[in-house]
């Protein structure tokens, strides 16, 4: 789950990474009430979980005079389709230099990957392509609880030594917060010190429980409903509903729909143990999306009981047609039940997908 900038900054500050002075407001009136406490010039930053916020108009400069109006203006905007509910009001820093520092999970090395560059404030992916040498890297096995000093020296190069403490503290945050990514871009120096001018922190969804986070905000309402049943569910833009077991098989079903020129309305992986109850909930959840015109059910498993799955589909009692591919135990019984209730049964996933694409054409 991606944290908002001010949430990440609160955590960074608690771990010894200085951040600019700031406050969070939820309305323009709230800002007006605090005007006397604010510096003459300040920054308004929309708190939205989307990338490229600055370019999309999510950051405004303001002063004592126009602060309230500028805040109202920002609350009225949507940033890449996301409504602005909270604004971080921050002091304006007199920046002397910008750096970039991040720590991420690296799949290939199975270690933490540290990136540092003195060309901060830029898009790091663009920099990586255009000037890969400008980015210094270090890999740390998670068995270490700190960054060895030689690595810190290698990373910093000629950058000020006090940034080393920031890197160590960022690694602490990465470890204790179960982070997939902890990033400061830009990390800035001013005449008064070093600050994380922006902050990004992504927490591992599998660790939300032990991090004391009860609700994953990254999910839509229907996705959250799906999560309650233990389904992986993603909303897409097409008209063919998809239910599968296993992420790979479900993705392959989506790909096959695209291959034959159709468009999937969703991705729904029922996970292990596709019994009657779970299948019924899955079918109802997918059918509740008004854009869904037909549903493909593609279930394959050694121990999946096809008769249970058939009963689940039938008991969902939905209006859209359902095309089913089932393989497992009691296949014949499942087939008989479905045929008796007017559902289409297909022998392979390819046939099922073709039939669904034909049905909406």
């Amino acid at each position, binding site marked *: 789950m991606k944290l908002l900038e001010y949430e990440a900054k609160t955590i960074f500050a608690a771990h010894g990474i200085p951040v600019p002075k700031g406050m969070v407001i939820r309305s323009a009136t709230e800002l007006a009430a605090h005007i006397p406490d604010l510096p003459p010039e300040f920054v308004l930053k929309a708190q939205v979980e989307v990338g490229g916020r600055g370019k999309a108009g999510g950051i405004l400069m303001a002063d004592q005079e126009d602060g309230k109006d500028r805040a109202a203006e920002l609350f009225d905007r949507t940033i890449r389709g996301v409504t602005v509910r909270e604004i971080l009001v921050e002091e304006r820093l007199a920046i002397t230099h910008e750096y970039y520092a991040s720590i991420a*999970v690296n*799949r*290939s090395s*199975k*270690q*933490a990957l540290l990136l540092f560059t003195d060309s901060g404030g830029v898009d790091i*992916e663009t920099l990586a392509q255009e000037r890969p040498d400008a980015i210094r890297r270090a890999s740390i*096995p*998670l*068995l270490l609880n700190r960054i060895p000093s030689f690595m810190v020296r290698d990373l910093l190069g000629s950058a000020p030594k006090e940034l080393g403490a920031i890197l160590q503290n960022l690694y602490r945050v990465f*470890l204790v917060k*179960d982070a*997939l990514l902890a990033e400061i871009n830009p990390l800035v120096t001013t005449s008064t010190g070093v600050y994380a001018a922006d902050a990004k922190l992504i927490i*591992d*969804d*599998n*660790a939300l429980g*032990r991090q004391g986070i009860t609700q994953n905000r990254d999910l839509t309402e229907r996705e959250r409903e799906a999560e309650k049943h233990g389904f*992986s569910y*993603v909303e*897409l833009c097409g008209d063919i509903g998809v239910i*599968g*077991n*296993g*992420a*790979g*098989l*479900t*993705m*392959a079903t*989506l*790909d*096959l*729909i*695209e*291959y034959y020129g159709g468009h*999937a309305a969703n*991705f729904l*992986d029922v996970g292990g143990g596709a019994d009657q109850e779970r299948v019924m909930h899955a079918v109802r959840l997918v059918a509740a999306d008004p854009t869904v015109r037909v549903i493909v059910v593609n279930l*394959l*498993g*050694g*121990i999946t009981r096809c008769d249970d799955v058939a009963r689940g589909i039938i008991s969902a009692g939905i209006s859209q047609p359902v095309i089913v591919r089932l*393989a497992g135990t009691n296949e014949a019984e499942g087939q008989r039940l479905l045929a008796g209730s007017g559902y289409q049964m297909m022998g*392979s*996933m*390819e046939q099922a997908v073709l039939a669904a694409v034909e049905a909406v054409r």
Partner: protein
Amino acid sequence: MIYGDRTTGVIVTGATGKQGAFHIALMNDYARQVGGRGVVAGVSPGKAGQEVHGVPVYSSIRDALREQDASVGVVFVPAAAAGDSVMEAASAGLSLVVVITEHIPVHDSMQAIAFARLNDCAVIGPNCPGLLSPGEIKLGIMPVHLSSRGHIGVISRSGTLTYEIIDQLSRAGLGQSTVVGIGGDPVIGQTFTDVLERFSEDDQTRAVVLIGEVGGALEEEGARSADIPIAAYIAGISAPPEKRMGHAGAIIEGGEGDARSKIKRLQAMNVPVASRPSEIPGIIKNLI
């Protein structure tokens, strides 16, 4: 055979849990069918002295190894304890541990895999269906009825999609040497590279099917190092960026690892890539 055969003794951690007990029975059914040793011990702390489907249960892997001869572990314990189970297996001297458990925090996986490496223990998974060498050994939860013994190796990040492809291979008369589900998480122990290295040294295996997904670059890394003919299928060509498709691993990060660029990179290495699972048997027949 890679990783194990009929003579391999297996220890299951989380033996008295619902999943553990259920799959001990299935693994030993298969062992009986093929004349293998199968699961010789179960481990569940505090449950020593019990039996699960005739298999003796011990409190720790060390205790089990005092009375039983085994070299491979299979982990079914819940996510919060799974990392520690891997480290216990590695520390007790097992040479391979297969982790079926899903939803393990990625930091736990990274630590456990690094620790296992220090103890020369290979980790398959987590969040994987395990492996199956038809006629020899089953480690994990793969259904056996779709498979047949032969000369094709299969390496996959998926579960059920693997079964789909095994089924298609078997129907086309292409039996399998070993099928390895390496797991759907972002950080996994044995990668395509490691498994391909074993397949290259395996006399039984003539070609390998690589079943990949969006996310990361493990497929390309494996293909680059492969010393054996390979064919690939990559799931997730229709996956939107920044969306998680079930597997924690199947997420495209900032344009990295999307299916189309992955397929392009594989093709640039002269690896034939199937655009549908049903094309795989045909491609493999051309390779051998």
